């Protein structure tokens, strides 16, 4: 293994569960990284990618540890060196750029103190030179006004600035290896583009090796030359970027790529059926970890774990390589053309303005007004239409949704449903008949279901509230609802804690459907889900619309998702409408500069 900067052999990470049975988070991972090389680790949540990354620094989260295998950085195993050597290694030899820089910076220390901490530990500079070095680093990461930045506290920086500080801090120790843990997740798309181009630049100029962990293969492909696909704790396929993206071999890689919604595609994203194997089951599983979800799985796959086999420049862990390369098992559906919508308008929003706070007495005394979050927004939704509402954080898209739902009072403007029902008032002032027609689904399925109620109870509640049903009919109705969102009837007795993220979101959708609504308001309902699950939810929404003709108002920051799902779209910036029109028009031929900028940021 000479010449490699980092090599990992048969590494397994996890903990010892009941009966001394090992629980694997990461299982038998092998990889090597040469100096200056950039490797992207891609996988869905729970696949063990972050644990693997942190293990490279000799760090294990509470309760986890190395079960077997070896790590060598520059010939040293970070798990075996003395604590002084380990401290020198961390931040000096290799440095981490964390996922959420806002939380990774100590809130009580000024930026300067946190920068200097690294310089003192990992550079030979005299204390007098620290300040200048900090300024140089800040200029390197293109932070505006470096002098000023040094004196600030973390909370006084924007999200993008915090991330740049974290990058500067990682570079301060002049490491040979940068470890990046989803550094752009949580940033707005336009900010993300800036950070990614900075990272590309750093790679090129400093020739630093990188391991970049992300759930987003498109982000990885911007920065990394090598890509490794992780699934259920194992690397299932690894190879050069172009090979892997253009001719994926492993059925999971193919499935993952097919599930990603893209702007320029004529087909719908194709979901992967089933769920990832949970860590508890990874130990007892003797076969391929993906066998349970794989369309090509044979008995061999279920009984014998596949070994890595080389194919040209890459290797794949799969028994059915030939069948997989034929690639016949994924047949994505064609995107449906927008159905012929009736002209009758379901919802009309006219001149809507919203602000969060009423003016305080001091403000009203001075004649000041607190700023409005939403300003003079007008749009309409027709029966059976799916309308997208896109924009970055702070654009007011969720606020509009909450106002229509009656959870946020409006300042001025009119909202009318079916031409007659007035939705301008808050929930309390609306008649029940009116409430039933508009239902809301939330972004985070973990928080939108009461953990103390079973699925059955959750679905029964709207039925009790809006309809007068007998107990027998009620049960039938609940079963029918579960069936409509493709969940088995047996799920009635389960608590939300016993469901996966995708399943919870299906229950949340079923709860909305229970009211037989005319309009469902969807607040980023797929953004907390993995792409393979997201694809299934998108398909479900399209099916529901086709079946029942319900209208959807779909808020999202993801343009590709909106393009896949929606008939028409509204682009928001700073609480104002920048552009509106049918999806085809707006995405093919954006008129407003902001829409163009947004589209240019899509990877």
């Amino acid at each position, binding site marked *: 293994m000479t010449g490699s900067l980092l090599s990992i052999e048969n590494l397994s990470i996890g903990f010892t569960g009941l009966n001394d049975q090992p629980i694997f988070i990461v299982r038998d991972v092998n990889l090597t990284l040469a100096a200056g090389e950039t490797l992207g680790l891609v996988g869905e949540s729970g696949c063990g990618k972050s644990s693997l990354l942190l293990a490279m620094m000799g760090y294990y989260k509470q309760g986890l540890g190395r079960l077997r295998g070896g790590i060598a950085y520059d010939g040293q195993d970070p798990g075996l060196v003395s604590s002084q050597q380990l401290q020198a290694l961390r931040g000096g030899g290799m440095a981490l750029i964390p996922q959420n820089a806002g939380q990774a910076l100590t*809130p009580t220390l000024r930026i300067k103190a946190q920068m200097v901490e*690294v310089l003192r530990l990992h550079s030979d500079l005299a204390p007098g030179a620290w300040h200048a070095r900090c300024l140089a680093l800040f200029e390197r990461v293109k932070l505006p006004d470096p002098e000023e930045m040094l004196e600030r506290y973390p909370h*006084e920086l924007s999200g993008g600035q915090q991330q740049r500080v974290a990058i500067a801090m990682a570079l301060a120790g002049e490491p040979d290896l940068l470890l990046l843990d989803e550094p752009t997740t949580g940033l707005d798309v336009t900010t993300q583009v800036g950070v990614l181009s900075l990272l590309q630049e750093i790679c090129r100029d400093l020739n630093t090796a990188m391991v970049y962990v992300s759930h987003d293969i498109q982000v990885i492909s911007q920065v990394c030359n090598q890509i490794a696909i992780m699934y259920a704790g194992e690397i299932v396929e690894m190879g050069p970027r172009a090979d892997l993206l253009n001719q994926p071999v492993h059925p999971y890689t193919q499935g993952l790529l097919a599930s990603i919604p893209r702007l320029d595609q004529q087909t719908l994203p194709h979901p992967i059926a089933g769920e990832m194997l949970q860590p508890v089951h990874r130990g007892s599983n003797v076969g391929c970890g993906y066998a349970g979800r794989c369309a090509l799985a044979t008995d061999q796959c279920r009984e014998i774990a596949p070994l890595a086999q080389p194919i040209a420049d890459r290797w794949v862990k799969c028994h059915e390589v030939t069948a997989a390369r034929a690639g016949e098992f994924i047949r994505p559906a064609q995107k449906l053309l927008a159905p012929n919508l009736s002209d009758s308008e379901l919802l009309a929003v006219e001149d809507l303005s919203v602000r969060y706070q009423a003016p305080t007495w001091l403000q009203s005394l001075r004649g000041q007004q607190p700023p409005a979050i939403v300003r003079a927004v007008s749009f309409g939704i027709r029966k059976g239409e799916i309308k997208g509402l896109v924009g970055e954080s702070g654009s007011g898209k969720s606020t509009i949704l909450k106002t229509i739902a009656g959870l946020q009072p409006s300042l001025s403007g009119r909202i009318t449903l079916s031409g007659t029902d007035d939705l301008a008032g808050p929930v309390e002032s609306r008649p029940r008949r009116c409430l039933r027609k508009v239902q809301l689904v939330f972004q985070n399925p973990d928080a939108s279901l009461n953990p103390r109620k079973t699925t059955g109870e959750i679905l029964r509640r709207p039925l009790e509230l809006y309809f007068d049903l007998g107990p027998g009919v009620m049960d039938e109705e609940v079963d029918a609802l579960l069936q409509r969102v493709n969940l088995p009837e047996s799920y009635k007795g389960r608590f939300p804690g016993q469901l996966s993220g995708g399943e919870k979101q299906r229950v949340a959708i079923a709860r909305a459907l229970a009211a037989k609504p005319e309009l469902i308001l969807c607040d980023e309902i797929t953004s907390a889900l993995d792409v393979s699950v997201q694809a299934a939810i998108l398909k479900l929404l399209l099916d529901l619309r086709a079946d029942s003709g319900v209208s959807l108002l779909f808020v999202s920051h993801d343009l590709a998702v909106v393009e896949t799902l929606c008939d028409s779209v509204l682009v928001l910036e700073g609480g104002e409408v920048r552009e509106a029109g049918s999806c085809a028009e707006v995405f093919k031929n954006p008129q407003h500069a902001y829409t163009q900028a947004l589209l240019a940021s899509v990877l």
Partner: protein
Amino acid sequence: MLRLITRRLIFAVVTLWVVSIVVFSAIELLPGDACQAFLGQMAQGKRLENCRVEHDLNAPAYARYSKWAIGLASGDLGKSIKRSKPLEEIIGPRFRNTVILGLTAALVGIPLAIVLGALAALYRDRRADLWISFIAIFCMTVPEFIIGTLLISFFSVWLGWLPGIVIMRADAPLLDVLSKIVLPVMTLTLVMVAHIMRMVRTSMIDVLASDFVMMSQLKGVSRLRQVVMHALPNALLPTINLIALNIAWLMGGVLVVEVVFNYPGIGRLSVNAISDRDFPLVQAIALLMASLYVALNLIADLLALVLNPKLRTRGAKV
């Protein structure tokens, strides 16, 4: 920031004002007036009338309240029914003694509690933590009068090192007081340390699991520096107010400790005053203790303001 401070100050004053009303009206609501309560069986005829005249009890309640409140604002606490000396002279030295007792316990206890809490969090679920937490539970759950009694029997009866009960005049010089308060301070400290230590431990465990402490570790920062520079300040910030509130709540315990050790402070004075049914004295003490509480919380509020960059700096939200 300045607005925040003014707001806190105004609220402190309002609190004291409302407390004074509550204290006054509570005593009004008790059966009988102050003279009847004090005189008990002998509360009749001339004697009662004299007492009422002397203490101005025939005036309507609002008039007596405003007189009392105006007196308080100018430092006149009122007149005791039983004792002939002005209340300031009775309460003054005893109040000082109680403050000395509480302050010494706080000065010893708070740093100790922070260190122990941090240690327990660092060694969470390991032997050091289990021992610290076990002893803390013991100190929290065993009443002050039992701890006090045990300490007396150990240090003064068995070892004979320290005086068991405090024998001194209320207005003894400061040095005299300090030399005699070892055991009472120890009792108070044990209870206080136990409570504060548990709060610090919980808060510290949260902070130790935070991204920024992990990040400092992955920057190669030494364990000591991680704890002292990155974790501890952030663990203490949310506990400052909580500590103040709890110290104030524990002031109820001071009363018991003073009785156990026969210590001449306002705690013991208040018990005596209540036994004597000397309501004006009780009133004055209650208000004094409320002021102590308000002052303590005000200090904690201001401390939290000063130490928390999120409140102190630009863009701070009120």
